[in-house]
């Protein structure tokens, strides 16, 4: 497994310093705490969590937009921040990101042609305008913006949200990536077109053998996109549960995962009105500036064990094959 991993996070943590008040001095805000993760070639890993859980930061760490405070991020076995120039350039080309908001991920002053041809020229994939045009048309066709000639000289504002997201996806494909981080890639889109974007991503994964990190707050989308892959559930900067998608959905182990699944409103009146949400001990999410000691879910968890959960951080236990959970309820199982 290890040698087939494309991306590995090795005890990665990330904190930001924030100033509080005039005399408050600096505080550390730990966004990611001691995260270890391995993503295999060709796999789909869905990173699921609520806002502020650190899932977007994890994505940015993986594409190398920010540096970890400690720990290593490995691409094909090599630490990206100690790579020499040539290796780092290759890594940059191989790992791409699709942002959430198609309205801010495309530069409003450029036409689709310029957006897609800039990386092609920069990396010598095309030499002149006619080559670039041909390649851009091919990319547009690949993301189902057909006929491509209708789109190539449009500005972003002339496109709908779904069409913009397709352009953003086409841009992420310009350099033939091996790994794509899709950060909430469909959550800003209208309900009726989300699925078509998901289908597109799935097809690209098959055709181009791209590995996906699919970051989302929407468990239903994660289930739909990543049924053959794995789900990792994040809470306050840590992964609390990770396992094959069907197992995590059908047999959630961590109390937080259970709480999420019991709470999610669903588009089916009978299903959703018969849900029995878990009664949490508190509604408030702890501040990242002031994380509780021990398991960070313990102040809200109805199953907490006093003296254990609020003292130590639980290890990852493996109560069923390849299905890991970080909760003392499963210690020794």
């Amino acid at each position, binding site marked *: 497994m290890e040698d087939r991993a494309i991306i590995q996070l090795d005890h990665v943590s990330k904190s930001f310093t924030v100033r509080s008040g005039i005399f408050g001095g600096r505080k550390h805000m730990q966004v990611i705490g001691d995260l270890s993760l391995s993503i295999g070639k060709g796999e789909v890993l869905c990173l699921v969590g609520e*806002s502020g859980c650190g899932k977007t930061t994890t994505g940015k760490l993986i594409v190398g937009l920010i540096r970890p405070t400690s720990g290593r991020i490995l691409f094909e076995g090599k630490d990206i921040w100690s790579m020499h120039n040539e290796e780092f350039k290759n890594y940059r080309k191989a790992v791409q990101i699709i942002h959430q908001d198609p309205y801010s991920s495309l530069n409003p002053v450029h036409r689709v042609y310029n957006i897609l041809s800039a990386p092609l020229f920069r990396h010598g994939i095309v030499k002149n305008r006619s080559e670039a045009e041909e390649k851009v048309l091919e990319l547009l066709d690949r993301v189902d913006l057909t006929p491509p000639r209708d789109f190539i000289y449009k500005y972003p504002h002339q496109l709908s949200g779904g069409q913009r997201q397709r352009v953003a996806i086409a841009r992420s494909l310009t350099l033939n990536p091996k790994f794509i981080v899709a950060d909430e890639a469909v959550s800003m889109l*209208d309900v009726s077109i989300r699925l078509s974007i998901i289908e597109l991503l799935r097809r690209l994964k098959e055709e181009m053998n791209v590995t996906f990190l699919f970051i989302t707050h929407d468990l239903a989308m994660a*289930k*739909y996109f990543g049924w053959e892959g794995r789900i990792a559930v994040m809470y306050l900067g840590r992964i609390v549960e990770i396992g094959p998608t069907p197992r995590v959905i059908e047999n959630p182990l961590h109390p937080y995962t259970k709480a*999420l*699944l019991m709470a*999610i409103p669903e*588009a089916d009146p009978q299903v959703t009105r018969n849900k029995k949400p878990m009664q949490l001990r508190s509604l408030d999410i702890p501040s990242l500036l002031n994380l509780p000691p021990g398991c960070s879910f313990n102040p809200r968890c109805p199953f907490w064990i006093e003296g254990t959960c609020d003292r130590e951080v639980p290890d990852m236990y493996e109560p069923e094959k390849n299905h890991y959970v970080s909760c003392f309820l499963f210690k020794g199982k």
Partner: protein
Amino acid sequence: MVKEILNIENLFVEYSNIRGKVKAVRGVNLKLYKGENLALIGESGSGKTTLGTAIIRLLPSSGYIKEGRIVYKGNGNEYDISKFNEKDLRQFRWKEIAMVFQSALNSFNPVLKVWDQIYDTAKAHGINNRSFVRERAISLLRYVQLDPERVINSYPHELSGGMRQRVLIAMSLLLEPKILILDEPTTALDILTQRNIIELLRIIKADMGLSMIFISHDLSLAAELADRVAVMYAGAIVELGSVEDIFYRPKHPYTLGLIKAVPTVTAGFRELYSIPGSPPDLINLSPGCKFSPRCEYKISACEKDEPTLVEVGPDHFVACIRHKEINNGR
């Protein structure tokens, strides 16, 4: 017979912008009954938010009601809201109909404490008795499960998204309105917080017997809370019916498409399907059914005249000429 409290008759709302007139709401007829929950479902540009803001006459300055009436029936009288002047509106908003806006953060003035915002709202509607407002505010904040003493002295940024949403809901109840309009009340909130707000709205409904209108793109909110659902597309209602009718017996291809486009987590896998194309340009609308360019049931007659709502079952209305052939295949 349930009493109707609001009757929207043939309403047209437009915005004028540099390119022309945006026909945001086109000929909507809709009744709201006492004590019911009505969900307005649609995608961006469907006109659902415009319809909601037109009801309490808070349209942006470029928008105006072109035609139609909005009749409110309360205190034994009938009033046409669309004819109200500013003074009438001040007497009316928040006392009869209140609205909770989509963006919980933007609805607050960032430099005022929660208490000042509550008191300003009360004053704007003619209630100057400080201690009365304070007492009522505290009991309402407690009612929405907040710590009133702490919240009332906080600035908006000191509260979490869920807390802000609860404060807004409490504020909307300040003057005991008969109708509450909620625009995307759970969007952008965390799942556990969403659940909490949904439970809260259930309690409010049970305790106060209000009529509520939910505006949302999120089908699951309608599935949770609505008694009746109106599905909007390109400024018009294309299907209207009970929540069971809409979710289990949809008769409009768009409704069917929407429901099939949303995956569920805990229910088993179901056949999913996405609607091709994108919504029409509301400035240059073509004749005929506005959904027809995206519709797989389209026949040539669809492009001639825009279909009107016809009753296909008890209180179930559909605007589609081929509704008989649409079976959800669930």
